[in-house]
């Protein structure tokens, strides 16, 4: 898995690491049982403090996506094929979704357009990065 961090982004680095791993799980790049580097290894490769990586891994652990153990290291705990999530997942996720929707509504985006954009975005979230890049190129060529 390629993990790219935008150093000029307002999003903190640990959040970018967490988000990128979540995207990789969603796209199938990482599956249940897939290992991740240790915090020190990933920190060294990215040139960031290992505490930053630790913070990202801890977020994923609390979300039930990562298992951390001294013996096996960091291992992906679940993926889309694992089954339905714990019901406790939905309140937090719906809360964040509510904020995202409110942002769009506040900017004047209509409900139909929101639904259409979600429909467009959903398969991209589940696609491997290569397929997403090819689709972007085709869109670019059409426009």
């Amino acid at each position, binding site marked *: *898995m*390629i*993990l*790219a*961090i*935008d*150093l*000029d*982004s307002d999003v903190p680095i640990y959040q970018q690491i967490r988000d990128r791993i979540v995207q990789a799980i969603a796209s199938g790049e990482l599956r249940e049982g*897939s*290992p*991740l*580097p*240790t915090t*020190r*290894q*990933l*920190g*060294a*490769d*990215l*040139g*960031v*403090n*290992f505490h930053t990586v630790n913070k990202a891994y801890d977020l994923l652990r609390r979300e039930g996506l990562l298992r951390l153990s001294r013996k096996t290291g960091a291992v992906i705990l679940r993926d889309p094929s694992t089954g339905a999530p714990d019901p406790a997942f939905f309140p937090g996720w719906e809360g964040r979704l509510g904020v995202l929707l409110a942002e769009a509504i506040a900017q004047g985006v209509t409900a139909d357009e929101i639904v259409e954009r979600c429909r467009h975005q959903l398969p991209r979230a589940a696609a491997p990065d*290569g397929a997403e*890049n*090819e689709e*972007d*190129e085709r869109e*670019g060529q059409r426009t």
Partner: protein
Amino acid sequence: MTDAALLINLTAIAVAVAAVGLLPRISRDTVPFGVRVPPERVGAPEISAATRTFTLSVLATGVLAVLVGLLLWSALPPGAAAAAVGTLLAAGLVGCYARAHRAVRRAKAQGDWYVGLRQGVVADTSLRTEPLPYPWLGALPSLLVIAVTAVVGAVLYPGLPDRLVTAVVYRGEDVEYTTAATTPLTAFAPVLFQALAVAVLLALLRFTLRSRPDGDASRPRENADRHRRFLRIWARTLLTSALLAALAIGALALLFWTGAMAEAGPAAAALVAAPMLLSGLVVIGVAVRIGQGGWRLHAEPRDGAGTGLVQQDDDRFWHLGGVVYINRHAPGLLVPKRASGFGWTVNLGHPAAWAVLGAVALAVAVPIALGLLGVVDLSGSEFYGWKFEPETE
């Protein structure tokens, strides 16, 4: 000066000029003369001009060193002449590089080359979760050569004379022999050198297979593919180099044990020098062909239009023209070299760096100190091989 000594001196100048002259080819295109530039600036006219000027000035420095050398070798003692020519050459080559480095830095600063670009860093997690396995099978030939050399030595040892010729010194027409009393240590010293040389190369391989790669945030997948190919090529290169070094020292051991070192004449040195030289040339050849970190290798396009990021501009951590790296906040002890050729360099800002450098310094200083105190004999009696010295008047 003898012909052999002149040839050696001229070869040394040629090698130094070639090594420095080839630096732009070995270094990444996005790090010309130790200065990080965005990918779209790689072909900038300022960089092309700096490269042209650098190449011509390096060649001119080499020619000047030869001319000055021809004057000094006839006027000064050999040691003084070599030191003077060496110093002039080193200063000249460093000056050429420093000038090119400043030219690119100036162009980058004046052109604001990073304005409006999003900088990033990238990691390929599969390098850690699915690392390349250590090629133990490839290491077997070197280990076998060491084992065979040791067995041959053990078979020949009982029949060795009381003193062994360890070195032959050719001084003009005169030939001098250095001998040592035959003991297990002196007799098997070549085997120990052989084992040490191979062990160092195999350890270097182990380290480089796990080292931090040089990232490219703009085209990370292609860079990751290149890096894996680089590691496989580098492994084969180091294993070949280790085998050639083992064969060279094995040949030296055979000449040593059979007494042929004293009888065979200076041509016997070629039997040892050729594979040893080839061992170094293989590494240099690969470095020139594929570049630092394998950046010259072809990679199938996998990043589409790119990530929209450029690799982080970390010039502020590189000093002395991109040769020295100091970053207290970087977690890694070793980082890919930027300017001084092929390989990795120590992060002097890392706490462990000074421990490593201190250990190396002690390893050098302690024997010297013991020699100066008379505890250890450093007169060169343990030198194994051939020397070609100018005729004494």
